[in-house]
């Protein structure tokens, strides 16, 4: 492959950015590790938070830099989606294709659709700016496999220009059985299937129709066809050793209990990870569910279902339900910095060396984090207690408490017990601090979002929110600023147990918390 590709932009000017790309591994396909199917159905000890020690080495190799497949990786590595696949072949009651809003952060929403050539250019530009970007996904805004030509053309271009980037796609599964061979041929490492039911009687309440082989199917027939194709596709993927994650939307009253059955069905077919996400159903999105008053689950309802399924297989709890054109670490979106217009102005140098160096630094930090956690755990040895606490954490990444309370767009939530600290989810919030002034209404929504937590760990916090949080029963903690999250959570827990023992405090359970629904406005 030559380092002098020029592509005409719509304005007619030649884009020079590809001409300056330094390709050190010319033409080499991205390194692909094999995946052991024997362990794909097995369960690691601590869910998707599983680290090197808990997983089959081949699987660990595949997921360790993939933020959407490894909770541990998502603190360090970023992903991007390119919106090259606008068409969809099914209708879901939680989706409205007429609604597009740049302030919304949720699947199916994009601000700009790209051609495969524009997408490849964007990937190279982003990878050069953001060395932690290791994963490229195609997730819509429709279904990638309902746009097979655009999807695979994009993969082909990216594999050629940025061979160290992992490729993945997310599909509803209807067309999947027809494309498993192509997925394998294009070295697509990871496939996510959205499976909300395995029973057509449930499915007909979620999918009004599917379009398959020149015919529109409705009702139970549509759901039956979809579930049959999803299962067939999942089996074919695992038979071909392609790592598979299953996404499910939790819709209270429709499929909440049924998702346990879905969990068993996908586990038995070799899915590696199950991601149960809350329904997003604001009326203003104009979805069928939104307009008909279907509610989403509360934070504790979601956690209870995830906990139940965790006995069966790895659960993903760090999904941010991101846009089909998201860029950056999960929980942040830098897509605004990489519009086609801006990319055309950038001088892009694809530097494998600096990407490798970044990744090496991350490996060292990861090891330091694990060592810190282990050392802290030793201090808990011998403690016996049934107490479990949730702790909300303001973080910018790297597994550290390094965000100001007022600057947090989200809080990561850890459950801590004598077993140690475990990531169990995140809560998106409105920014409390806007231009230096805390806003009262925003503080209330923050409190509602983390109301089930005993403490909130921050790098810094102002006096006023400190008092409000304390009054609401959530202890603001800034003494662990810039330290590792898990180590600090364990230390806090040890002190908490000591205070309970000495009678200084009385342990009480906290209530439920709200999952934030409305438009997400990035600062």
């Amino acid at each position: 492959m030559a380092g002098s590709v020029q592509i005409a932009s719509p304005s007619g000017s030649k884009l020079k950015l590809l001409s300056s790309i330094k390709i050190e591994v010319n033409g080499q396909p991205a390194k692909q590790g094999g995946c052991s199917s024997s362990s794909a159905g097995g369960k690691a000890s601590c869910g998707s938070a599983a680290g090197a020690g808990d997983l089959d080495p081949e699987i660990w190799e595949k997921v360790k830099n993939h933020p959407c497949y490894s909770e541990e990786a998502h603190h360090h590595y970023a992903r991007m989606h390119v919106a090259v696949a606008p068409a969809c072949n099914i209708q879901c009651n939680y989706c409205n294709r007429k609604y597009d809003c740049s302030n919304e952060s949720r699947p199916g929403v994009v601000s700009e659709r790209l051609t495969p050539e524009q997408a490849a250019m964007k990937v190279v530009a982003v990878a050069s700016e953001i060395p932690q970007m290791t994963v490229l996904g195609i997730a819509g805004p429709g279904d990638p496999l309902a746009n097979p030509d655009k999807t695979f053309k994009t993969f082909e271009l990216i594999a050629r220009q940025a061979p160290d980037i992992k490729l993945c796609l997310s599909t509803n599964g209807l067309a999947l059985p027809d494309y498993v061979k192509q997925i394998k041929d294009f070295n697509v490492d990871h496939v996510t299937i959205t499976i909300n039911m395995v029973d057509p009687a449930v499915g007909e309440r979620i999918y009004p129709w599917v379009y398959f082989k020149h015919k529109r199917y409705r009702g139970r027939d549509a759901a039956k066809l979809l579930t049959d194709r999803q299962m067939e596709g999942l089996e074919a993927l695992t038979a071909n050793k392609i790592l598979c994650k299953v996404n499910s939307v939790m819709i209270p009253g429709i499929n909440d209990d049924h998702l346990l059955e879905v969990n068993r069905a996908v586990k038995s077919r070799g899915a590696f990870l199950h991601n149960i996400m809350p329904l997003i159903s604001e009326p203003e999105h104009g979805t069928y569910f939104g307009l008909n008053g279907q509610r989403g689950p509360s934070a504790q309802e979601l956690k209870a279902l995830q906990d139940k399924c965790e006995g069966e297989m790895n659960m993903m709890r760090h999904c941010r339900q991101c846009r089909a054109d998201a860029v950056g670490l999960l929980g942040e979106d830098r897509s605004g910095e990489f519009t086609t217009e801006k990319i055309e102005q950038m001088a892009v140098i694809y530097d494998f060396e600096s990407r490798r160096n970044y990744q090496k630094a991350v490996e060292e930090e990861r090891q330091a984090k694990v060592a810190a956690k282990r050392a802290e755990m030793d201090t808990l040895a011998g403690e016996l207690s049934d107490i479990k606490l949730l702790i909300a954490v303001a973080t910018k990444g790297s597994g550290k408490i390094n965000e100001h309370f007022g600057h947090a767009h989200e809080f990561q939530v850890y459950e801590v017990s004598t077993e140690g600290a475990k990531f169990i989810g995140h809560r998106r919030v409105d920014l409390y601090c806007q231009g230096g002034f805390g806003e009262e209404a925003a503080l209330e929504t923050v409190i509602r979002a983390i109301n089930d937590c005993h403490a909130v760990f921050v790098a810094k916090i102002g006096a006023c929110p400190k008092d409000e949080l304390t009054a609401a029963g959530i202890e603001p903690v800034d003494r662990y600023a810039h330290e590792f999250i898990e180590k600090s959570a364990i230390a806090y827990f040890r002190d908490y147990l000591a205070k309970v023992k000495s009678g200084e405090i009385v342990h009480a359970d906290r209530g439920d918390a709200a999952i934030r629904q409305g438009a997400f406005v990035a600062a």
Partner: protein
Amino acid sequence: MAYRIEESQCTGCSACEPECPNNAIYATGGLYAINPKKCTECIGYFDEPQCVSACPIDDTCVIDQSYTRYVAAQLGS
């Protein structure tokens, strides 16, 4: 004798375009349109008009009343 795409409804998703047996659908200004001269309403190809079946938005691909229905035109010729 043709379907047309209601411009205010079209999202430009392209789902209809590859499904048309007559290649009557084309992109225009980010949205899609149907060339009425090529449209056969899928008669002779499929039981249902493919643009209607594939389109995610109801009432977007609709019969263009300003043209004679395809069947009627065929019978008349």
